[in-house]
């Protein structure tokens, strides 16, 4: 796919370009600051933007804010945020517009190449890729939630993977479960959380994340 990268550290920018080109993707532009990113996205309309949270000039969360600006300008433009640490509140900001096609991963995840490639495919296809760390933080907020408390251990595991944005088949592979039992778990989970059953997995992920974020 056609990708734009925003990463201020040369080392990582080059690393990302190598990984993406080696795996058959096309890097249209690799920039090192937020304004250039917004320009590059407007110019190329890429299938995916991969953005570092910290960008010059402030080195705080300019990358995230640029991503939000891009999403406001081009609704649904797929954006994957990479960071060296994850914060739940950043995920909340990304998910806020409800358009999907967002991801938020630790930079470490890039080294697990297959998972990373899977994640960018999901985001580009309009899905969600949430770092397990983010999901853990979301769960931590919901310790007193009656719906979450009613889940079995296995259901929690499944819910965590759903929240990360994995498809049913990926969840089957991750937990070594049969497709039927995964579907059964998901039906139970949605019932316990009082969420409508939804065949569209992207919408389902968003509903789950919204629930955990409330």
């Amino acid at each position, binding site marked *: 796919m056609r990708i734009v990268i925003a990463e201020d550290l040369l080392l*990582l920018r080059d690393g990302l370009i190598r990984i993406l080109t080696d795996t058959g993707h096309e890097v249209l532009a690799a920039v090192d600051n937020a304004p250039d990113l917004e320009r590059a996205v407007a110019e190329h309309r890429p299938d995916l933007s991969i953005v570092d949270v910290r960008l010059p000039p402030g080195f705080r969360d300019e990358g995230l804010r640029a991503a939000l600006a891009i999403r406001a300008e081009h609704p649904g433009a797929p954006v994957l945020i990479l960071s060296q640490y994850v914060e739940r509140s950043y995920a909340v900001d990304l998910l806020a517009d409800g358009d999907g096609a967002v991801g938020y991963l630790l930079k470490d995840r890039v080294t697990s190449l297959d998972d990373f490639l899977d994640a960018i495919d999901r985001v580009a296809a309009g899905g969600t890729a949430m770092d397990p760390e983010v999901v853990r933080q979301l769960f931590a907020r919901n310790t007193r939630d009656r719906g979450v408390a009613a889940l079995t251990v296995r259901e929690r595991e499944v819910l965590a993977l759903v929240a990360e944005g994995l498809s049913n088949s990926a969840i089957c592979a991750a937990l070594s479960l049969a497709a039927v039992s995964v579907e059964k778990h998901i039906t139970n989970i949605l019932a316990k959380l009082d969420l409508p059953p939804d065949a569209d997995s992207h919408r389902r992920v968003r509903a789950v994340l919204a629930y955990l974020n409330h």
Partner: protein
Amino acid sequence: MIGRTGRALGYLALGAPVAILALAWTLVSSILLLLLAPTQLAPRALLGATVVSRSLARFERWRLGWYSGRPVAVPYQPTVAGPVRVRAAAVFREPATRRDAGWLATLFPLALPSMLLALVPTLLAVGLATAPAWLWAVPNPNAPELVAPIVGTWPGRAAAAVLGLALAPLAARWVLTLARGQAGLARLLLRPDDRQQLTALAARLATTRARVVDAQAAELRRIERDLHDGAQARIVAAGMTLALADRKLRGRPDDPVRADVELARRQLDGALAELRHLVRGAHPPILTDRGLSAALGALIADSPLPVDLRVPDDTSVPPAVEAAAYFVVSEALTNAAKHAGAQRCEVTLAGTAGGGLTVQVRDDGRGGADPAGAGLDGLRRRVEALDGILSVQSPAGGPTVVSAEFPCAS
């Protein structure tokens, strides 16, 4: 020696005219103020008189600073705004006003005799020492018999010169002693009193401490950023390279190198996780990015216990206070999970009236925490460095409440 003595002489000599002025002014102003005291004009008169008295006292401070080489701090409070009566009352209450008056009154009986006592021996010593140069020009037909040989003969004049030279050091010492005495007393009365000095010292210490604390917070932020842009980025890049290598080896599933590459990649992941943990311990990145409440949210997410977090929407406190508050919560949550066997915790932050911040962490564990334990002690030092107070209540059987209060007026 000669220079110092000259300066001391100048100091003492200059004291005399000021002393006469001071005496005159003390008498005039006292009479005026006594006469005007029962009238409406009293406050205005007091303010006017103070202007003159303070000018004299300022000159005295300059004279003392010039002599001693150490400037004297000005003890006056900043002028208060408001009606004449209020300003006059404030001036009247100031210790410096009374001390000025005390010095001006002391000056005449002190400085005038000092000047005379200093000048006479000095002139005597100088006169004798220089006798051969001028004594011959003074006609002394009626010189007493005792003095005549000294005055009238060269050997006599030479002897006088020797005597004068011998007297000179004694005279100089005498002059210096007199000057030192006057200067000592002057400094006592003209400088800020002890309480003012202590207040100023406390203010200075508070400022420098705040600076140290801010510098430390800035240093930790810098370290966090350097790791982020340096070591952490390098390790991620190395991981990317390994991931690509691993991918290239896929065509050879039996190659033993694959296992090593995979292991190396996992080891790097472990290193990254550890670095992240370390950085979070030094200065959580989210504090840099988004401030305290977001950072606390991340913190409770890491806690194995269910935590209720209550944070006001607006916690605008200095970075050093943010970091300290963060670590108070961090340490308390760790203890609750590790040692207290708590089931749940409550973390409450609240702003105080003076723009300060209180942090309270309560758990329902078994209590019995040792407030002097290493973790809590380190925490106490961190909090106290900011002028804050850390208190730990942990009766046996619980609950444990760790609270910190920070004044944010730094």
